[in-house]
């Protein structure tokens, strides 16, 4: 086998590997990508076909109701970003950092009755953290102005969230 031919084989192998990597990536993107939708955009942007998406905002103060469904713990609460809010139902253990007023991100799908059924609820491990998507949603809805300073620490989110909750309804 000549030098040229060998080089061709190596190049071909590279092409096949990278090509299949690209093909896999593209096909997986179209199947598995999950979009983030803020509570205020749910009416217009949320996928309706039962496809899962991520939704994040602050848990409205006083909205959390814990219950038991089929011997399993469940919870119902409202998540809002100031511009709108949505009812969320979740069966399972809420994360340790889940608290009213805390920013959360939930993965799930819209139900026919207009509630969001979460399959996963994430709260950040680090207490001083506000999920980036939540921060953006808050900025967009005018609840938090970054030029006025850093996001308030999580301990004060309770009071921060209480006011939009009252205004919102």
């Amino acid at each position: 086998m000549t030098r040229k031919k060998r080089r061709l084989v190596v190049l071909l192998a590279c092409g096949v590997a990278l090509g299949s990597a690209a093909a896999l990536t593209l096909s997986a993107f179209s199947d598995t990508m999950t979009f983030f939708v803020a509570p205020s955009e749910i009416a217009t942007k949320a996928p309706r076909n039962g496809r899962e998406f991520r939704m994040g905002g602050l848990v409205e103060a006083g909205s959390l109701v814990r219950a038991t469904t089929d011997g399993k713990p469940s919870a119902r609460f409202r998540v809002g970003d100031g511009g709108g809010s949505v009812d969320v139902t979740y069966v399972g253990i809420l994360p340790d950092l889940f608290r009213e007023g805390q920013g959360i991100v939930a993965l799930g799908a819209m139900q026919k009755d207009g509630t969001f059924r979460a399959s996963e609820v994430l709260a950040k491990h680090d207490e001083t953290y506000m999920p980036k998507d939540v921060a953006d949603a808050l900025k967009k809805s005018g609840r938090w102005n970054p030029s006025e300073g850093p996001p308030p620490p999580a301990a004060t989110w309770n009071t921060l969230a209480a006011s939009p909750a009252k205004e919102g309804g």
Partner: protein
Amino acid sequence: MIPELGHFALALAVAIAVGQAALPLWGAYRRDARLIAAAPALAIGQFIALATAFGCLIWSSVTDDFSVRNIAENSHSLKPLLYKITGVWGDHEGSILLWCFILAICGAAVATFGRNLPSSLRARVIGVLGATACGFELFALLASNPFLRLWPPPIDGRDMNPLLQDPGLAFHPPILYIGYVGFAVPFAFAVAALLEGRIDAAWGRWVRPWTLGAWCCLTGGIALGSWWSYYILGWGGFWFWDPVENASLLPWLTGTALLHSAIVVEKREALKTWTVLLAIGTFSLSLSGTFLVRSGILNSVHSFANDPTRGVFILGLLALVIGGSLLLFAFRAPVLASSGLFAPISREGALVLNNILLCSIAAVVITGTMYPLFADLLFGQKISVGAPFFNATVLPLAVPVFGAMSIGPVLSWKRAALGPALIRLWWAALAALAVGLIASLRARALPALCFGASAWMIFGALAELVERIRLFRVPFRGSIARLAGLPRATYGAMLAHAGLGVTIAGIAGMSLAADTISLVKPGDAVQLAGYEFRLLDLRDGLGSNYTSRIADVRVSRDGREIATLSPSRRTFTTQTMTTTEAAIHTNGIRDLYVVLGDERDGAAVLRLHDNTFAPWIWFGALIMAAGGGLSLLDRRLRIGAPVRASRVLAAAE
């Protein structure tokens, strides 16, 4: 006083780093023997300065000096001593200092153990390490100084994030960082080789042990991190495909490729430019891994110690190091001509295939990790790419790697035939097929395939051993003699390959895991996978800086008691934060995993998992790291063999 001493030592380290970067590189360029000889002394001076700085920070933390801002914000007088020490690297400033300190250790190690290197190459390697250290120490000094004072000092500190107060995470960062930063040495070797314009087999031999060492630590660090998230986050999973985790996986993938391509440089003097590029790429990924995540650019669920305000400095530094080295590569790479020729079906060919596939996997993981960032910047879309994406893309690319892993080592160098190699592996193939078929009775298709692949890797490694000692083909005594005569690097490679097999079996086993969530009153029981979990009691406990709520759960099977597990929830008083302590009973093959949730109406929420093969995930990683360590002990890498090789080459020229 002590913090000021540390502050001064850090400033001194920056000054030494400037000298360490400038003098040896200039000396090697001008062939000035005196400047070249200064390199080791500077590297060791750098090490001493940073060791002092780091020691001062630990001292301040242990003595509860809350006038230091960093310690006031991250420590507390009631914190156990262990976490006062390990807490030093739990926050942003301290972890950057640790990063710099490990880089200094690498420089000092090259100075100490690199006596058999040609002096100009050693000077250049140390110089490149110095230049890198200079940038990051400057960052530590100017933008994230851990020694800044606070006035007035608070009476007590704000305490560390309770999730970090855990032995697993106490040692995870240093090990992971040694892995990340360790790749700075192959990087420095690559840049030095570009400056010298020469790469030979000896270069490959010098680079190998440093790459191996870094790779072992990175493997251990990733495994420790994944184990920590398994047992402390209490969600029962072990890998989240989160940007932080991907950031550590990327240099591991390219580092593994580098490990293998360096063999080709060493044995066959081929793939030189590619190896240099891989060394640069691996360290670049390590750098971006540590710092992109910390700069807050990538959105992660479990990153600690990040601070977006300092992102610009870091980005500039990254651009300088990565861009500079790639530019140098573009200019100088054509100088490095390869000489070794090989056929596509040969040991080299298999190693090239390994490289291509590992880099394709790395490319896919980069795309998945970075795409949300670009989608947000370019299209204003908020997207997340999660586990389904990575499972769908990484696995199909990994399967050929698994397949080639057992075949490659039995191929001969230069030119080989696939047929005889496959015949030698027939019983490994049979075993893999059998395991895959048995697994397909219980598991779905994909996990069954993975079980088969893991058996293929484990038995493939065994078959290679059998082949090498010519078991049953020469008299038994001869086989034993061959067994003793095999180089340690060969054993190391087999062990590492088998270790990956064990890990893959563990990961595939997670698909058989069962879990349930249940509201249980004391005295009641829950059934899961044939086990009975009976909640005996709920009680309160008291720790040094937390209070806890503990559940006692008795696990039995067919009336026979197996274990009593005590999962708990800890409430940390200073940070008003609750953490979940999962209780795990393992028998080496399966984990019984119990998490205590919240309580209501006298009943407690329990989440129960039965994770088959889960311990194998970390056990396999341990085997891999041990295999790497064994290779590191190989005679060839320890003894002054490189000198001989370079002399032979010099004679040949």
